[in-house]
């Protein structure tokens, strides 16, 4: 049996243990907005240097305003070592009007950085509502 010696006991110890437990819980968080494409590569979401392991969950992107003849590309990059470069993971292209309008793109856990971008490659500029969920 392992004996753990502590300098405190009773209520103080319970409080500390509870505080440690709560602090270790990830918080499911969200950000988002509306981005107007302009033909350049535009940032949707970047977590450039997380303080530790965290869990990006999902990108939601609304294509309601995308018209026929328009194409956008969503690119996903991850950094998988401290100080390393971003590496391209995936690229998803959406052409013309979309049905259903709302697309959900799953994201994987990460420790050193994640980047999501949007680029209009053909057609008209438009407004795209988006949100990103992550547990941190």
């Amino acid at each position: 049996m392992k004996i753990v010696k502590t300098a405190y006991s009773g209520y103080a110890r319970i409080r500390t243990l509870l505080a440690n437990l709560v602090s270790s819980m990830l918080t499911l968080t969200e950000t988002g907005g509306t981005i107007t494409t302009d033909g350049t590569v535009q940032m949707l979401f970047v977590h450039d240097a997380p303080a530790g392991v965290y869990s990006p969950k999902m990108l939601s992107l609304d294509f309601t305003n995308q018209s026929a003849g328009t194409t956008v590309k969503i690119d996903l990059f991850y950094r998988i070592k401290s100080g390393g470069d971003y590496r391209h993971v995936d690229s998803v292209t959406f052409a013309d009007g979309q049905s259903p309008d709302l697309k959900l793109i799953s994201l994987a856990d990460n420790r050193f950085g994640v980047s999501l971008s949007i680029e209009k490659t053909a057609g008209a500029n438009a407004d795209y509502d988006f949100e990103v969920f992550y547990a941190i």
Partner: protein
Amino acid sequence: MIGYDNIPENENILLDLPFYEGGKIVTRDQAKPHHDGVNFQDPGGGSFSFAAEASGLTVPEFVTVGGGGTDGVYLDLDDALCADLDFTAGDYSLGVWVNWAVGATSSSIVMGRYVLNNNGWELYLTDYGGNLSLTLRHHHSGGFSERTGNFSLGWAHNVWTLIGVSRSGADAAHFRNGAVVPTTGSFEDPETCSQDLVIGCRYTKNADWFKGKMWRPRIWNEALTAIDWFNIFDKERDLFGV
């Protein structure tokens, strides 16, 4: 896992900028209103530098080189996108972690949405003859005075500190690292404001530069309690070794 909005301190949060983007121009708001378009601005003289603390948390440093019109850097948000931060009446709170360096000017604006002696609110640090203070000020085009507000003493340079203010009625409680500190002064309601939100500089965006590091400016439309401020500090202090 716990939901962000279920954390008691986040229930009435309007703006929350954790600066996850590193050196990008835009930074995202993780509070529910999604204030879209908070931008890092560099007029030319200063710069932003991003580096990790010992905890691994990356924070921006406002590298201010002097007190001139382009010597600093700041963040702003267009006034049309932050009408909800126009606190003409009622309670609100402001919070932010700072590591305040010695600058070239006595006043360092932490954040504000105001026009001097006319309308709005501002939060600033002052280094005046070695007296380091924090002031929350309201501006007035009418009323008894052009400015009302209160200040607290005992702030410090070059140490990470959680600033908190909770405005309620004629008073605003100041909190340093989750603990209340004495204040002097009182408030009238500020006149309505249609100015950009600024973080790190004067409303004119050419003076009173903040110099040092900053993390997670937050704004609430309620007066956070002493317990709220203690909880925020207690959860985040290890990120800064305080």
